[in-house]
């Protein structure tokens, strides 16, 4: 967060980029729901990691491109990711301490 003189304004991506990202997001959602309905995967242990990965992908896409975090100053990335990581840690810690990992 060193002091930068007025940062060079990076142009916002064109509409075409946004449309392609929307298409990817839709595709991932369709895949997620499809996986949900495949009985072979539904009951197994592999369902959760796959779905978490896919949704993390959607999460990153929206945050980096729609919320313009990727081209923006690293200041915003820092302010957003620190609490995000903390929130993830809190989720894992509470699930562990309250005994939620039982299957």
């Amino acid at each position, binding site marked *: *967060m*060193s002091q930068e003189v007025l940062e060079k304004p990076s142009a916002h991506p064109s509409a075409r980029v946004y449309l392609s990202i929307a298409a990817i997001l839709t595709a991932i959602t369709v895949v997620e729901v499809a996986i949900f309905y495949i009985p072979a995967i539904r009951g197994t242990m592999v369902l959760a990691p796959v779905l978490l990965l896919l949704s993390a992908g959607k999460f990153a896409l929206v945050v980096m491109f729609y919320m313009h975090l990727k081209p923006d100053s690293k200041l915003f990335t820092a302010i957003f990711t620190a609490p995000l990581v*903390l929130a993830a840690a809190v989720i894992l810690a509470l699930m562990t301490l309250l005994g939620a990992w039982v299957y």
Partner: protein
Amino acid sequence: MEATAATPDSLESSSRLWSWITTTDHKRIGILYGATAFVFLLIGGLEAMLIRWQLMKPDNDFVSAETFNELFTMHGTTMIFLALMPLSAAFFNFIIPLQIGARDVAFPRLNAFSYWVFLLGGLFLNASFLFGAAPDAGWFGYANLTSIQYSPGVNIDFWAMGLQILGIASLAAAFNFIATIINMRAPGMKLMRMPVFTWMAFITQFIIVTAFPVITVALVFLMFDRMFGANFYNPNAGGDLLLWQHLFWLFGHPEVYILILPTMGMVSEILPTFSRKPLFGYPVIVYSGILIGTIGWGVWSHHMFASGMGAAADTYFGAASMLIAIPTGVKIFNWIATMWGGKIRFTTPMLFSIAFIMLFTIGGISGVMHASPPTDLQQTDTYFVVAHLHYVLFGGAFMGIFGAIYYWWPKVFGRLLNERLGKLHFWLAFIGLNVTFFPMHLIGMLGMPRRVYTYSAELGVGGMNLAATIGALTLGFSTLVLVYNIWHTAAKGEKAGKNPWGAATLEWAMSSPPPVYNFSVIPEVTSRLPLWTVGGMNEIPDVPPEPIHVPGGSYWPVLAALGLVGFFTGALMHSLWVALAAAAVLVVSVFKWAFEPFEM
């Protein structure tokens, strides 16, 4: 406590009261915070006196059990949420913009909103006394004592909603200060050239921003359990009572760092000034502050060693809690090194800061004693912990804050507080504190648990409890000496120039009290200690070369605050109409506020 107005030219306005109600000037909001918090400090202190009077001797009947339980709950809640945090906020408000060379905070109206929500929240919480239903489940309010089954009255509703309101005030202020510190520093003031008080405040705001949502969620769960029959803390429906303890202490431990870090910043400003020497190891103090803030998030369950979480959890939380002693120890050694080789003047702020180091060390050590889970099995929930927490919160936070009051008073009001009365206040407080809280280590180890309205004579701790009561009365009286000092110097205090203590940071570069625009020209700094370094900063003329636009007042923040607190009052009264009406006031005020032309 109607403070003397800042410099006459800065506060011309039709009626004085209306100008205070609609003020958006960070300096006046700081004074409002300080005055309100000081009144709540006196209320909390009165509650402490009543508690000590009841515990003066075994089987005493000065107050009933119900009243005692309300007193210790309100003493804890008031001291933490209504006295200590707002007193720190008073200094954040007044001093941070001056230290970073800004004309005001980033969002002045949001700043006013924070204050009014805080004030109304404090009144909301204390209004419970008028209904004879003050909160009585402890400042921590463990689940299912707070459930509707075991606390059917409105006591807990007052407590939970009061904390929600105060949480909103703290969060709003935190966003404001983070934006101010990041974006409104004077040219040349890189992050590592910021004064240490602003650094510690910066870390504190990030802890507030991440910790308060957790207790907000915990309180929402509690309110849904009580009002809509939800099952969050209902073991019969599969709920786990430890969920509340985990969520509360996930907020609770970062909270105690919210309480102590600002004071560490204040002490780090006072010690160099009166040792005539720069702070020793500035970057180390800053990084250890950041380390305390982050590790502070990984230790919360040391409040729960007796709840049977299992050996693995106890081992981790015990080790992590001990780890925090290292950055704290490093700070203490750096403070002593600051004084080493200095030219030490024992003014009142300096005495309070030295006492802070002494007493906070004792509190830190007694803290490490129950960071170890097995010893905590004897110490938790006993008076040993009461001694520990008062050494770090009174000996630590309040001594530092009293020092800061005497240190920055001339800058805020233009007059120095009387040194002789200051020293009397210091010695009475120092002796009173030790006489009150040192015996409590022993009382706890000899078997007296916390929050008991009485104890049997055979327990053998009657004599020490009497000593603690005498000490508490001394402490109470010492605070009155400060009140007299304030009243005495309001008119007759020695005039303070720009820099009565010869300090090094930016807030001493303009007149006392500062003009409403703070700096006639925006300062440019080239060093961490601008006033002590040759060419450290540009010249600040007394009269601004060209007119400076000062934003006017606005009444939308106070109306929005009334709407918000009205909504909670409606919820408390289980009256949908009051809640909806208040919500309407809030929404209208927010819209009007958003569209009000307010030129920064």
